[in-house]
Structures are given as C-alpha cells and as structure tokens.
C-alpha cells in the first residue's frame, strides 16, 4: 500500500518546481508506492517551519534557513533534516544596473540595496560582504516581486535575489540581461549551498524507506527534467495555467546551469555534500545570521537516505 | 373581599432612589370589585404606568402588598391581559398570529397549542371580527392604520380570557373619531364578558364615559387623591357625552386636577 507524503515547495509553481511536479505527473513516485502531494510555498523559512510543525512531511528549502532554524530552536521537537542537496551552489546573487556604475562588489559600499527581509541573499550578505571587503550598505525591505520593479525604477541601486528569478523578472520589467551586472555569490567567494530536500525527524524515523524511495524517484525525475526541460515545463503549465511556458523553461535551464548541474555538483555528486564545505557554511551562517547558538552540521545533514552514487549519476557527460 | 387590593403600596424604581426616598408612587390604597371598570387619570409622569406595572406584577412593590384574586402578586400574572399606549404588535407576525401570541405562552393553552391550533385560530379570527377587523386578519400590523392596530392589541390582551384587562392609554395616539369608536367597542366587550378593567388615560371624557369609578392621581410622588364614582346609567350611548350631567362630572374632575396643578397641594380623598 502507498505511503502518503505531503511536500512543501519553497516557492510558487515556477520552472524549478518541475523537479518535484514531474515525478508526480510521470509516475516515478507512484512506482515507488508513494502518494506525493506538492503544495506551493512562499519562502524557505516557511517551508522549514511547516515541516517542523508536522504539517508537511518533507519540503524544499534553502539550507541556510534550515541551519538558522536549528540554531534558534535547539529544543524544538521534530527538527527537519536535510536529506538531499539540490542547489549545490546558492542561486543568491546581487544585481545592479550597468548604468549605475556598480561593477564590482566593492562598488556596493554605501549603496542602497533592496530585498525582502527573508531573502537568502540578503541574509547571507554579511558573508558576501566579508569575502569581498565591502563597506556598509543600506537596506530597503519589500515583498519579493517588488524588488526588481524598484531596481528598474531606480529606487534602489542594487538588489539581492535568486539568479534565475531576478534576472527574468528584470527582463519582464523591460531590462535586458546585458544591461544588468550580476554578481553571483559562488563566483565571489561565497560557496554556500542552496536548496535542499528536507524531512521531519519523526517522518524519517517512521518512514525511512519512504524517504529513500522518495529520493530515488526524485533522482529519476531530475534526470528527466535536466534531459528535457521543455517537457518538464509542460507539467508545470498543467498545474498552473497562467505561467508563461517559454519564460519558465528559461528559468529552469538557468537554474539547472547555475545551481544544479554545476562543476561543484559534478565533483561532489548530485545530491551529496562535502563535509568541510558544509561545516564552513554552518559557521558562516551562524555568524552572518547572528543565531542564538552555533550550528552543528551533522544535526542538519543526514546523507544516509541518498540513493547510490550510481543512481545519482544523472548528469549527461559532455 | 375585593378582587384587586392595593394595600399601602410604595415603589422606588431602584435601590438608589429608594435610599434617597424618591418614590414613583406612594402609599396607594385601592380596592376594585370583581367586574368593576376603573379609570385612573392624572398628569404626565404622575405614576400611572408605574401603577400598571405593579398591577401586572412586572414590578414588585418596595413596601406594601398587592393582592389580586386573593393571592399576593409576586411576578407577572397569567390572569391579566395588558394593552399599552403603543400597540406593540410584533411586526413580523400577521395580525391573527399576533393575537394568538398569548396562547403560545399561557397555560392551559400552551401545552395544547400544537394540537388545537386550528381551533385557537378560529377563536382569534372571531375576536378580530368582533372588533371590526374581519378581512384584516392576515395582514401585517404595518399594513393597518393606528386605530386598527390598537384594536388588534386589545384583542391580544383578551384572547386568553383574562379575568382582568389592564389598558395603559390605549387610545392616546388615535384621532378623536376613531377613539370614540373604540370606546364603544370596549364598552360592549366588557358588558358581554364582565372582566375587570383598569384603564389609564389622560382624557377625562374617556374615563367618565367608560368607567364605574374614576381615580385621580397627583403628580410625583404619585398618590390617589380623588375617587369619584360615576353613576351614569348603563348601557351608555356616545350621545351621553353631550349631556350636562356628563359635562358636569368632567368639569368637576377637571377642577380637581387644575387645583392640584396650580397649588401643588394634595386634596384629601
């Protein structure tokens, strides 16, 4: 009989959500006797929260948000644990218009930056700041979809955001990609991990096989998505009729290229992490987010549910 | 023994007023025989409505006793029917449903209301017919004129065949012509059914035309200052109100009230 899995996305149904919607639609989860329901989300923080409260069994969230939760809620029962890496490099980036004259991170000193308070790029900015020796900056807070508008209008000098989100949003506001100066965190000495698949502690204890099965099916799905983004977007379009298929396809490809199928990912293996890098990130996040306690990387990450390395070898050799 | 017996009744509306000695009515002594029709007249605010509340049991006296039908009054009585200055019909019920309201509340009708509904409704319709509201039974109160509403209100007060009918200025808001019509209706009903009536009014002609005994109340604190038996023969016709005998009684009562108003002194009973 099937195991029901309630899955919480980090964001709305956009291109990258194909990684989860496709195996639902194409039956990879069904084949593993899983009945997976995927719900749209509104931020990694909320996704972590909802898995922690037991409302959802598993979810997709930024690893730094998960670390922050662990550090700030050491006594919480059912703390979520990361079981698989998806965005091996954080998609966080700083965007500035070329015409503003901001070329390097150092130019950001004294400038006005816009982002929601919960944005991963904004929260991790101290790490970026330290790595690039940037002076003080001023922050302006706003809802996520507003930041690109504000940048386009010139109300802020730069924004932080996910590379594949903000770049395309800026385009929708009439800013061409070549007019934007993008400073991706991984390219500027901030090799944080990005989004991971998380699962509640209790769910892990009760259904370890289901989690393993989930990750296996997910891996198969991911292979399909990477091989054929167009078909993957068709699945997303079915779920949310208003999306612009071409735009989301581009978004998905950007996500794959910048965060999923990266050189680092190929080196570490899809879905896995490198322990030293994880430990470094834990200490950086604890500093940057000013958490209550330090972060124990082993409590946050549990790689024992991963499929075999062979199964995870999904990147087409080029 | 009298049917209604007020024995040294005082009422203050609340504890504060009681403590200050502000009574709405003071030292009321009054006896009404079975089947007697009495009227109470007096200036505005003298305590007429207060007297009615005591007689129905809506208020308990601060001092003294009210005995009705041989029993001391301790709460609302089911043997009374009451009609107020405003018709107070429930606007969401048809006229006949309004008239039937007491039957839904008062025993023995209440417990048999569901079974005998048809019978009770026939009774209500007959009563409405008798006050000239035939054909209006299924209209809503707001579709009737003020006089018609008042008639329906009196029917409601009578439907459960109370032994005593209490009327607090029931004709106050009507025009003179409608009012005189209703006087005759009330006179005939009382003649037929012989229930007790206590009528509160401003109108001296009304009180003299209808009542066996008229009481005059003085202004605050309310006391009964004059008791006048009306010895006009019954049945009385409306024409009687234009006879000198009638006019004289009205004039006499008018004199008592005028004296009270001018000097503010009490006139011995």
């Amino acid at each position, binding site marked *: 009989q099937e195991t029901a899995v309630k899955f919480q996305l980090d964001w709305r149904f956009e291109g990258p959500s194909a990684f989860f919607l496709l195996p639902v639609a194409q039956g990879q989860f069904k084949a593993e006797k899983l009945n997976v329901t995927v719900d749209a989300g509104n931020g990694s923080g909320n996704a972590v929260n909802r898995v922690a409260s037991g409302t959802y069994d598993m979810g997709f969230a930024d690893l730094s948000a998960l670390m922050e939760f662990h550090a700030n809620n050491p006594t919480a029962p059912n703390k979520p644990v990361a079981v698989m890496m998806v965005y091996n490099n954080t998609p966080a980036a700083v965007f500035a218009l070329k015409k503003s004259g901001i070329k390097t991170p150092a130019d950001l000193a004294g400038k006005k930056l816009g982002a929601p308070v919960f944005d991963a790029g904004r929260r991790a900015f101290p790490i970026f700041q330290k790595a690039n020796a940037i002076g003080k900056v001023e922050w302006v807070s706003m809802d996520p979809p507003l930041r690109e*508008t504000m940048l386009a209008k010139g109300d802020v000098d730069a924004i932080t955001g996910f590379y594949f989100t903000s770049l395309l949003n800026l385009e929708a*506001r009439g800013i061409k990609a070549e007019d934007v100066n993008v400073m991706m965190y991984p390219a500027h000495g901030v090799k944080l991990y990005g989004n991971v698949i998380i699962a509640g502690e209790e769910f892990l204890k009760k259904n370890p096989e289901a989690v393993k099965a989930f990750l296996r099916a997910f891996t198969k799905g991911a292979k399909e998505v990477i091989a054929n983004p167009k078909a993957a977007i068709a699945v997303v379009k079915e779920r949310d009729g208003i999306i612009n298929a071409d735009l989301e396809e581009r978004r998905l490809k950007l996500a794959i290229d910048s965060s999923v199928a990266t050189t680092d990912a190929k080196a570490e293996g899809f879905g896995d992490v490198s322990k030293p890098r994880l430990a470094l990130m834990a200490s950086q996040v604890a500093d940057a987010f000013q958490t209550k306690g330090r972060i124990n990387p082993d409590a946050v990450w549990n790689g024992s549910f991963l499929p075999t390395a062979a199964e995870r070898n999904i990147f087409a050799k080029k | 023994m009298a049917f209604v017996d007020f024995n040294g009744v005082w009422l203050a509306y609340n504890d504060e007023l009681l403590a200050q000695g502000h009574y709405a009515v003071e030292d009321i002594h009054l006896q009404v025989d079975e089947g007697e029709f009495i009227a109470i007249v007096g200036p505005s605010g003298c305590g007429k409505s207060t007297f009615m509340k005591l007689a129905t049991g809506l208020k308990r006296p601060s001092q003294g006793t009210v005995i009705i039908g041989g029993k001391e009054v301790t709460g609302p009585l089911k043997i009374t029917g009451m009609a107020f200055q405003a018709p107070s019909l429930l606007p969401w019920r048809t006229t006949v449903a309004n008239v039937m309201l007491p039957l839904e509340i008062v025993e023995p009708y209440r417990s048999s209301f569901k079974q005998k509904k048809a019978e009770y409704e026939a009774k209500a319709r007959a009563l409405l017919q008798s006050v000239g509201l035939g054909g209006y039974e299924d209209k809503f109160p707001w579709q009737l004129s003020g006089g018609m509403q008042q008639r329906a209100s009196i029917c*409601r007060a009578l439907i459960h065949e109370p032994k005593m009918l209490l009327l607090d200025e029931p004709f106050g808001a009507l025009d003179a012509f409608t009012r005189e019509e209703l006087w005759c209706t009330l006179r005939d009903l009382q003649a037929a059914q012989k229930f007790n009536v206590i009528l509160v009014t401003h109108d001296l002609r009304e009180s003299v035309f209808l009542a066996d005994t008229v009481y005059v109340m003085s202004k605050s604190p309310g006391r009964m200052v004059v008791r006048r038996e009306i010895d006009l023969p019954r049945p009385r016709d409306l024409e009687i109100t234009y006879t000198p005998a009638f006019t004289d009684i009205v004039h006499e009562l008018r004199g008592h009230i005028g004296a009270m108003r001018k000097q503010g002194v009490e006139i011995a009973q």
Partner: protein
Amino acid sequence: MTRKSLEAWSPWVLLVLILLVWQGICSAFNVSEFIFPSPARIWEQLLEYKAVIAGHAWRTFWVTMAGFAIAIVVGVLLGFLIGSSRMAYTAFYPLMTGFNALPKAAFVPVLVVWFGIGIGPAILTAFLISFFPITVNIATGLATLEPELEDVLRVLGASRWDVLTKVGLPRSMPYFFGSLKVAITLAFVGTTVSEMQASNEGIGYLLVSAGSAMQMGLAFAGLVVVGAMAMAMYEFFSWIEKHTTAWAHRGSQSH
C-alpha cells in the same frame, strides 16, 4: 419613468465613464502595463485567460462561501451569547474590537502551520474576518430590543427563553441580514488575502503569481473578478434582506 430608468442605469453609466477616463489616461500618457494596466489590457487578459480565471474564481467563491457559512453559525451563536446579557456585552465588546483591528493576513502563517496549504487557512481567514460584523449586529439587535416588545411577553409570565425565541430572534433578523451583505464582502477579502500567502489555487494565488510574473493586466483582471463576485453577493444578500424582513423596512411608512 425616464428619471427612474436613468437612476437604475446610473451605476453602469458611471462605470463606463470611469473606464473611459482610466483608459484615456493610460493611452494619453502611455502608462506601461506594469505601472497601471489599462481597462482594455485588463479585458484582453480576461478573455485570454478566461478558463484559468474561471477556475480560480470558482475556487475562491466556494472557499469564501464555506468560510462565510462558518462565520454565520459562529457569528450568530456568539451574537446571541453577547447580546442576551448586558454583562457579556460589556465584557466581550472591547476585546472583539481589538481582535477586529488585527490584520488577519498576519494569522495566515499560523493557520498554515495548523492546516497546511490549501482550503483550510483560506476558509478560516474568511471566517475570522467576517464573523465580527455578524456577531456585532446580532448582539446590537438584541441589546436594543424595545422593552415594550419584551413586556408584551413578560406580562404573560413568559420565560427568558420564550422572550428570546419569540421576540429577540425575529427582532434581530433585519440586523442579521443587514450584516450579511457587509460580511460577505469581507469574506472575499479574507479568502483572497489568505490565498495570496498560502495556496495553489484561487484568485489570491492568481494575483501573486501574475504579479510576480509582471502580468499586471492579468492580476487586475483577477481583482476585477473578485470585486464583481463580491458585488453580486452583496446584491444577492441585500435582495434577501429586502424580501425576508420586509416588515423592518415598511415598519415606519403606512400605506
């Protein structure tokens, strides 16, 4: 005759006028869609996505109705509780005001933790935002009961319960129906706000999703649809109000 029909048409005339002015401004100053879409553009998007919008609108509609149904039940019961005693009225009223002044949007994350993404939080937000006017109106209807109407029954030795059911309940009906038309528009706001934060479906989701994709024409089309639904329900409840409690409206005027 002409005057009357002119009056009946006047809201439409005004609507057309507003749309013309709006379109005029948008065309004249060439306002770009992402700053403020023109009516023509909204209409275009409405037609293009009509199937999708209809699906989301239907979801929002029934979710709102579900929340509203709970609001009616809870609102009426609470209203009765509060209105039937002076003490309860003074005790509850200030706290209810305070609660009413909280942005219900702030509760959505908490509701999601309890009920997950989907209809749960939306139904509950619709309920939380709309029960207040119902409760207040029922309570006010009972609290302002004319003592004369009450005395009519008390004189007959009626119990408290008799008075409540025979007088209190029917007397508060016009207040109740009056509140429904206000509450239903609030319920739509509640559902939409909740869907904006936590849903895969509904007009609220459409707003956010279209907004973040900068399809402002579509987002405004969604807004127009909620507005229209709310207006239709308002008219519906005000029709019900007129037809169920005619006595309250004709009470004063004799024929």
